[in-house]
């Protein structure tokens, strides 16, 4: 039975946006928390820690996100846990985001001039204080534009949760399309909704980048 695409279908798509946003928010907060430690480990003075962080980043950047989601989803079963698609997607995206943010922030930490490190340690600051009061506040400024840019990538990535069966925007689009058979209209609307979420962030990221480039010239 083919249904017509009506206002109700549109509302269904619109309400799925909240799940895309929720998944993005969780993955971003989780990814940022873990990613900070990855970035610190990646810039550590201890070689083993640095190598471990490099391996972690390369593993996540060198394999498809879809495989990572599958491995979390099916791996949980192997471990005797029963993860629903929502939890699996949130965990998988968190791990993935942490690797990408870790690598982005590594660059930002290393962009702080070497003299700042030397001056801070000459003043007697140890690692925690040195990071907390001298390096990270300066690194954050550099980090904002690429982090906002990454947010766009993250929102788009949440669409893969549809493949493991979590009903966010893309999955909602599939469901509506299966009922109405109007792929252009349905996925067109889905694309527009993603665009409305991502485009402002892209513009913001580009604007921040320009402002930062002016400030450091």
């Amino acid at each position, binding site marked *: 039975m083919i249904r017509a695409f009506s206002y109700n279908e549109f509302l269904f798509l619109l309400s799925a946006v909240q799940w895309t946003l929720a998944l993005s928010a969780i993955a971003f907060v989780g990814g940022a928390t873990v990613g900070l430690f990855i970035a610190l480990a990646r810039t550590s003075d201890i070689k083993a820690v640095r190598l471990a962080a490099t391996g972690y980043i390369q*593993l996540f950047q*060198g*394999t*498809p*996100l*879809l*495989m*990572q989601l*599958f*491995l979390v989803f*099916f*791996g949980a*079963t*192997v*471990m*005797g*846990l029963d993860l629903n698609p929502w939890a699996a997607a949130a965990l998988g995206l968190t791990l993935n985001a942490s690797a990408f943010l870790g690598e982005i922030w590594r660059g930002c930490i290393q962009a702080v001039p070497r003299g700042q490190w030397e001056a801070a340690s000459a003043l007697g600051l140890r690692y925690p204080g040195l990071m907390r009061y001298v390096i990270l506040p300066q690194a954050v400024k550099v980090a904002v534009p690429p982090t906002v840019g990454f947010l*766009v990538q993250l929102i*788009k*990535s949440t*669409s*893969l949760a*549809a*493949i493991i069966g979590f009903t966010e925007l*893309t999955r909602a*689009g*599939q469901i509506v*399309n299966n009922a109405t058979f*109007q*792929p*252009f209209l349905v*996925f*067109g609307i*889905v*694309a527009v909704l*993603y*665009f409305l979420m*991502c*485009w402002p962030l*892209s513009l913001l990221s580009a604007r921040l980048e320009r402002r930062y480039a002016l400030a450091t010239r």
Partner: protein
Amino acid sequence: MPVNYTFDFKAVIDSWDYLLQGAWLTVQLSIGAMILGLIVAILCALGKTSGPKPIRWIINAYIEVVRNTPFLVQIFLIFFGLPTMGVRLSPDLAALIAMVVNVGAYATEIIRAGIESIQKGQIEAGLALGLKPLQVFRYIVIKPALRTVYPALTSQFILLMLSSSVVSAISADELTSVANNIQSQTFRSFEIYIVVTGIYLALAMMFSALFAGIYKLAFAYDTDRR
């Protein structure tokens, strides 16, 4: 909760030739999309840097739309959407088109940055030496531009290869689809996806080595000004 799962890779080993076929299609799709995407990107970058205003506007719209919507939705639009306009596509062809459209937009921005890094004086010098415009474009603009952006461009290509796993959603017969098929017949999901993830990692390293080789062949010339 006790971990009493026994790994069984027999299902994976039994279907290694099928996996290999899938990996081969992933490689073919990726290389095809890289070459076609590069052509699209060079044309669009040219249009964006020196085309008339309407063309520039259309290219900008293309780039923004592709970069701000998920690849998966782009695939669905092409695979399910085009047939309603009377264009029937096989999953493999739809996958290739989606990959070209996607990577073309990202690569356009990268190559545009490369072209903009070429100084005007270089082009004028080339024309003054009597080179034809096409020769100027080939030797003075595009080759040094590609050389400048080579690292960014090739990492974009590797990202493309990895994201090609998403085309399994329309069951093109590439590596991830093959894995899904084996999985649904044997239920050895974890083992299969571990092996397939390893294959993707190996492919990523292979492409990275290939790109390093191409760089040495095509771009490793001395540019020091003396």
